[in-house]
């Protein structure tokens, strides 16, 4: 704001102080919560171990195993409690980071492998056989929890959390509390004794100063603590096993889709050629043969057949042209995505405004996929939406090609209804692309397609519209 008066400036400055004070008080409260959580998550397992030991020792007489049994029972319950607490405290910390800092720390626990039963009735956990179902479940759980990266990170945070809290959060809170107590004591002392007023005033000021400093540094301390937490809990840059597995599944699926649709496409082309152009060429050949015969005897009939043959060849060409357009539109090969989409817009019955911002040409397969998707979306808009205007935006930014198709129609489009959008999604999936749909009843409908893509060769960006 350029035109603020001095009075407004003063007001703004005045607001800043209470805001900062409020932040600090809030941070103190949050620090206490965090510290309590850290303490709780450590204390609970020890209490559990302690009580288990007492209970087992007192009430379950186990002379055979003796102290070993007691220790074993205590250890098992302790580990279970530690596991539960570590998972809980990590969950809390993630939630706190998200709520207070707005950073989403993902928790990627790998799924537990299913138990499989073989023909002998044994249970296979994925790495060992067990006769009993219960034992197999425990074995599976132990194996999984030791191998799971997210659980490991939880455990590390469980161990680190108290230390981090002690290091970062306790000093400022202690400074605040100590300062307040010190100042209070000075005031009380000064009132009662009043023998050395100067020193009690200095003590009061010192106490207030320490308390204020403690209050002011608390938000930063809390921030530092949560930063450590985020670093520990954030899944590493290196892809985890879970992510890799998911990726492989995705790739297998999209590859199957791509191969399937390619095979279908080839079949369609084969059929079209067989029933269309090929058949027509055979017919033309036969007609020409007949003409050869008729040349000598009946020239009028020969002429008639000649014109028929010419028409046949024209039809064959027309069919081949349609087929080629379905395989790879010539205008796409000649001009690239922008002009190809403009060409689509010109042929569309709806007024369509096309804005293209592509510094260079995308890879040919991406270009073709996006072209066919836009073609289908435009056809959908013309058929179903009842729109009067369509806008197509093609934009490339930060390695991502984004296409938005918007119409001012009646909306209410659903991804499930009709296989059109599904087909587009599948086509984009091969390129790791996504499709999102926003179509409230009453419109407008906006479909956004995004796919990662690199660009090549020089092209200029242009804007164009068709009235």
């Amino acid at each position: 704001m350029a035109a603020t008066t001095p009075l407004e400036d003063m007001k703004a400055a005045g607001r800043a102080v209470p805001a900062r004070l409020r932040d600090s008080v809030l941070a103190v409260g949050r620090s206490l919560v965090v510290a309590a959580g850290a303490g709780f998550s450590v204390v609970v397992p020890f209490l559990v171990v302690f009580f288990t030991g007492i209970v087992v020792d007192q009430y379950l007489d186990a002379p055979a195993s003796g102290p070993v049994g007691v220790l074993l029972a205590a250890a098992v319950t302790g580990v279970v409690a530690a596991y539960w607490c570590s998972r809980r405290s990590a969950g809390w910390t993630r939630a706190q980071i998200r709520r207070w800092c707005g950073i989403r720390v993902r928790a990627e626990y790998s799924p537990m492998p299913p138990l499989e039963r073989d023909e002998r009735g044994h249970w296979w956990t994925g790495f060992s056989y067990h006769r009993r179902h219960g034992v197999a479940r425990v074995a599976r759980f132990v194996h999984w929890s030791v191998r799971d990266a997210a659980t490991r990170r939880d455990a590390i945070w469980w161990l680190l959390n108290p230390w981090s809290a002690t290091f970062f959060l306790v000093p400022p809170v202690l400074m605040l509390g100590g300062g307040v107590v010190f100042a209070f004591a000075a005031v009380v002392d000064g009132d009662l004794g009043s023998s050395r007023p100067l020193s009690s005033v200095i003590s009061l000021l010192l106490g207030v100063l320490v308390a204020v400093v403690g209050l002011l540094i608390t938000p930063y301390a809390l921030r530092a603590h949560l930063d450590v937490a985020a670093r520990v809990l954030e899944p590493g840059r290196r892809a985890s096993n879970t992510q890799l597995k998911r990726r492989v599944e995705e790739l297998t699926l999209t590859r199957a889709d791509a191969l399937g649709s390619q095979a279908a496409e080839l079949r369609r082309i084969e059929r079209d050629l067989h029933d269309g152009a090929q058949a027509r060429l055979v017919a033309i050949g036969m007609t020409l043969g007949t003409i050869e015969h008729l040349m000598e005897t009946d020239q009028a009939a020969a002429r008639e057949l000649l014109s028929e043959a010419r028409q046949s060849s024209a039809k064959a060409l027309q069919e081949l042209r349609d087929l080629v357009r379905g395989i790879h539109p010539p205008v796409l090969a000649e001009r690239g995505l922008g002009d190809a989409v403009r060409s689509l817009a010109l042929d569309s019955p709806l007024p369509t405004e096309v804005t293209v911002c592509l510094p260079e040409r995308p890879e040919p397969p991406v270009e073709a996929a996006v072209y066919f998707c836009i073609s289908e979306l435009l056809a959908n808009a013309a058929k179903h939406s009842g729109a009067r205007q369509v806008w197509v935006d093609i934009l490339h930014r930060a390695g991502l090609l984004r296409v938005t198709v918007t119409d001012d129609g009646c909306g209410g489009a659903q991804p499930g209804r009709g296989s059109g959008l599904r087909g587009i999604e599948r086509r984009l999936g091969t390129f790791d692309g996504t499709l999102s749909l926003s179509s409230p009843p009453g419109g407008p409908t906006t479909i956004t397609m995004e796919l990662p893509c690199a660009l090549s060769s020089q092209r200029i960006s242009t804007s164009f519209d068709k009235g």
Partner: protein
Amino acid sequence: MRVVLAEDLYLLRQGLIKLLEVHGFTIAAAVETGPELLEALLNEKPDVAVVDVRLPPTLTDEGLQAALAARRQVPGLPVLVLSQHVQQLYARELLADGSGGVGYLLKDRVFNAEQFVDAVRRVAAGGTAMDPDVIAKLMESRAGSGPLQRLSPREREVLELMAEGCSNSAIAARLTVSDGAVAKHIANIFTKLELAPAEDANRRVLAVLAHLNGTPQRTPASGWEA
């Protein structure tokens, strides 16, 4: 009449040369690539050029680009563009300068030698020859909106033929009606589309195409307001 021909496929090039020579044209140059075409067009200054859209070395729209570049340097240089497919986009680009003398036809049209030669002559004379497919698509995409709906079916037929570049007598012959009837239809079309009447047939066609293309023609200063 001197022709510059650009076509990269040997068989088609030879066929076109033969066809044009039979009908009394002189081949000034027959070239294969885009750069050669531009050079030939600028050096030979032919009466008309017959150009394939897709030419080496890039095998994209080199032919069209060379033709457009030549027309920028020599305004009104008659060019007939041939292609395996027709696009409204290319038709617009050819018509954009509004000076006439352009043709845009599917290669199939060569099959009908008389009509093809007629189209070449028309373009050479500064007229237009638009492929029926282009016009049909143009009419289709404009059909939903505005004045075209006011035309009668017969008037639409006349409009299509006129947009292809046919003269009054050619339209009359195709529709098997009298010249007078065609003139009356054309007058009606101009009234319904709110176009200013024009004496010159070429200017009239350009006005119709501009109207179909949706190109604004509110500025009489542009020189081709019909």
